[in-house]
């Protein structure tokens, strides 16, 4: 962690909200990305990102200054997303089932993505959250297996297995869609 980031965190611990605002500015894109990767719905992801930063500030004393801040904030975000998915599954099964299609309604958003990425996103949407979450944390969030395991309260081996299976599944889906290697 950079010295000035550490300083921002220390100032935040002392109640300096502007310092925390600076932290939010630095991490908002990646935190939003994690939430969007897991939830798939931009509105929900936006709420989750905002909630994650507020909760992180409230619990800042539990952050170990010797750890990567990104790992910590991503873990908070992922947990919020997990809870959100669980609530949705319990209270509105239909909403959960259809979440995969919700994010495709913005035509502008579609234009920005290239075709391969769009196929990949559709493939990701087909995965169950228990596979998608570790995948997003590992390859977008750049988290270590052990951090994901700790966050999801599962053995590291289980996480590795889930990521392996998720990748095999993605390959199959993409191959069916005709996506091949660039190489």
């Amino acid at each position, binding site marked *: 962690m950079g010295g000035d980031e550490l300083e921002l965190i220390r100032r935040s611990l002392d109640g300096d909200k502007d310092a925390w*605002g600076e932290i*939010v500015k630095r991490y908002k894109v990646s935190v939003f990305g994690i939430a969007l990767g897991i939830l798939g719905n931009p509105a929900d992801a*936006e709420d989750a990102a905002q909630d994650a*930063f507020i909760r992180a500030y409230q619990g800042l004393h539990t952050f*170990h200054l010797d750890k990567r801040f990104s790992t910590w904030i991503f873990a908070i975000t992922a947990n919020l997303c997990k809870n959100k998915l669980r609530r949705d599954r319990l209270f509105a099964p239909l909403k959960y089932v259809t979440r995969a299609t919700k994010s495709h309604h913005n035509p502008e958003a*579609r234009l920005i*993505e290239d075709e391969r990425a769009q196929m*990949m996103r559709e493939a*990701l949407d087909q995965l169950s959250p228990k596979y998608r979450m570790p995948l997003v944390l590992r*390859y977008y969030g750049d988290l270590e297996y052990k951090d994901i395991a700790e966050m999801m309260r599962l053995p590291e081996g289980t996480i590795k297995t889930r990521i392996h299976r998720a990748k095999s599944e993605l390959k199959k889906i993409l191959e069916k869609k005709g996506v091949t290697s660039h190489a």
Partner: protein
Amino acid sequence: MHEHELEQLIKETVAQHAAAYQDRITDLEYRVVDALPDRPMVVEQQPVWPMRLALATAAILLFLGGFWLGGTLSDGPPCADPYVLCLVYPNAKSVSLVGQLTQWERHPMNGPDRNGIWWIRLPRDLEPGRYEYGFMVDEYHWVHDPRAREFVHTFDNKINSVLIWPPSQGDAP
């Protein structure tokens, strides 16, 4: 598709998806700051006891002959006391003080109280000096003391908190 290419594509896909909706988070920092509570930490409150009960308890504690014993009988952590180290960690199953004060042995802390505060009383005869320490949460998590005024980096860049004794005036306890 190669493994590496697949992983790269996952990363790019999520990044592109997020970029497509970036306008949603343009002013996120302002919204977050507006919604923040005043302090990030749960500020420990001294238990507010009725005066009589407080007096009676104080008398009993004095009778039992020691502040140290008083600390263990009291039902709230006296975190404002400079002789007491506190850590707010509601989800922990156990917290120990580990450091030069304990010859790096784990000394279990009291708690948690209803606010998730763990605490431990320092010896009354603590010699003046600098003492490095930290908290071991659930047997293996090394946690620094956010209330410490100094920190040093040690193994694996883990951080030790430093207790400067006696605390100078104006320092947090």
